[in-house]
């Protein structure tokens, strides 16, 4: 009886794993199958033409711009906020409040960020539907991610390094710059890579703040589409599954490269830790 139940459960485990893997393989397989024939040099580097065909270069540029702008703002602020929480703050009410705030921010669905951005950045700050409005919205989305991963990374720096450095008559700031941040770097970098993934994957918040213009942005105040929004729109508006899947392939490859580099960086830097 016992044996029978064990075997049942074992079968269930194998079965579930099989279903999960099969479904996911089918999805990725389908996207590659549908989209592969579209992929070419012209597709990646060509300009988009709404009359059919055309490349995705404007969307790639837009995606890169949103990543650059939002990280340029969120990375320094996020790292320094984490430094404050972990290295400077007396662990009391204020810190608990800040932690609570950052954790709550992580849980908010991106459509709500989009709602906020669409009125606050787009309308009230008069930035219009634009790359900059989307990037500022994305900044708030990734800020808690960077704060949390940096804090985790700071936790791994041995307390003895801090003591050793301070006992030599250095300031906290010197200790931070020369000892603590370098030791925490692998963790911080993987947090940044995670944030890039989040930005690349984001759709709703960008859809509401950057708009849908399918052309090469001329400035950060242009309305434009990122790759993810593009794959959504060609599906919804034109029903062009093949094109959407081709964009999907590009997205999957980007995420794959990000994941691999995160793994590589943390391994490499951990080793470089002598």
């Amino acid at each position, binding site marked *: 009886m016992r044996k029978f139940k064990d075997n049942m459960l074992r079968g269930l485990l194998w079965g579930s794993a099989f279903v999960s893997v099969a479904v996911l393989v089918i999805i990725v397989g389908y996207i590659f199958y549908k989209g592969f024939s579209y992929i070419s040099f012209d597709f990646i580097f060509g300009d988009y033409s709404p009359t059919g065909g055309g490349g995705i270069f404007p969307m790639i540029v837009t995606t890169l711009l949103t990543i650059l702008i939002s990280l340029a703002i969120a990375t320094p602020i996020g790292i320094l906020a984490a430094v404050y929480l972990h290295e400077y703050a007396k662990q009391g009410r204020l810190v608990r409040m800040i932690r609570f705030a950052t954790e709550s921010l992580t849980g908010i669905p991106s459509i709500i960020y989009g709602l906020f951005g669409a009125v606050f950045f787009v309308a009230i700050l008069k930035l219009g539907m634009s790359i900059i409005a989307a990037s500022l919205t994305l900044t708030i989305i990734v800020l808690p991610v960077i704060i949390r991963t940096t804090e985790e990374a700071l936790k791994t720096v041995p307390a*003895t390094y801090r003591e*050793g*450095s301070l*006992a*030599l*008559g250095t300031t906290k700031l010197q200790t931070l710059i020369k000892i603590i941040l370098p030791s925490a770097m692998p963790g911080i970098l993987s947090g940044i890579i995670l944030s890039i993934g989040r930005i690349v994957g984001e759709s709703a918040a960008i859809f509401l703040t950057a708009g849908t213009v399918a052309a090469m942005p001329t400035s950060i105040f242009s309305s434009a589409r990122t790759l993810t929004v593009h794959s959504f729109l060609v599906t919804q508006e034109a029903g062009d599954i093949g094109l959407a899947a081709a964009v999907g392939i590009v997205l999957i490859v980007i995420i794959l490269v990000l994941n691999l580099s995160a793994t590589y960086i943390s391994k490499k830097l951990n080793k470089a*830790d*002598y």
Partner: protein
Amino acid sequence: MTMIVSEASIFNSTTSATTDTYATKIQVNDLNLFYGEKQALFNVNLDIKEKEVTALIGPSGCGKSTFLRTLNRMNDLIDGVRVIGNIHIDGENVYESNDVIRLRTKVGMVFQKSNLFPMSIYDNVAYGPRMQGIKNKKILNEIVEESLRGAAIWDEVKDRLKSSALGLSGGQQQRICIARAIAMKPDVILMDEPTSALDPISTLKVEELITQMKKDYTIVIVTHNMQQAARISDKTAFFLNGEVVEYDDTNVIFSTPKDERTEDYVTGRFG
């Protein structure tokens, strides 16, 4: 800056000429320390003499490290620590001064376990001077060599200064830690059980080094090892439950202590 460092080293070597009784270097008056509500030091009074080795002994948890860390204000790093009482070093009140940096450059510290940074041997030793603003390569080279010689490890590492400090053995690492402290040209060096994680041979090397260093530095060392205290120190303070029970010449403490509790402890009857 560079001038300052070389003058400081002259200062160290010239004063070492004097012998016999030295001036009081550190004067501790009615020192009490609280971790939050919990009191860890009770009315500590000690006069520590210049260019002597002072050993702090006592059962674990009696406040030796806590006391040691008041001397360079490392306790400031812990939330909720309160200090009442006075410590004067060279006549200057440590807890009234607001220049902790200067205090810590003057009072170096070596920890229980080597805490070298994940950098090369050279960079570890040059770290402190660099943070003081010394950039000149030649001067840094000199300081590093001088400090490594001072820590009696120059010959062992001179060919691998650029390789990782964490690749060295425990005993070597601890001596690099001492070199790192010496590089700041301190007057006082605090050591918190510096040999407790070392094998007997490395321990002897460090002890030998401490004995040599006595001519240049005032050394305060916490040790669990009674023989070590007897071998290397001039004065010994016996701590119990946050109080100094007895403080005297080391040979007095180990041969004819006045307090029964001291006798019990040094003869190994408790602790």
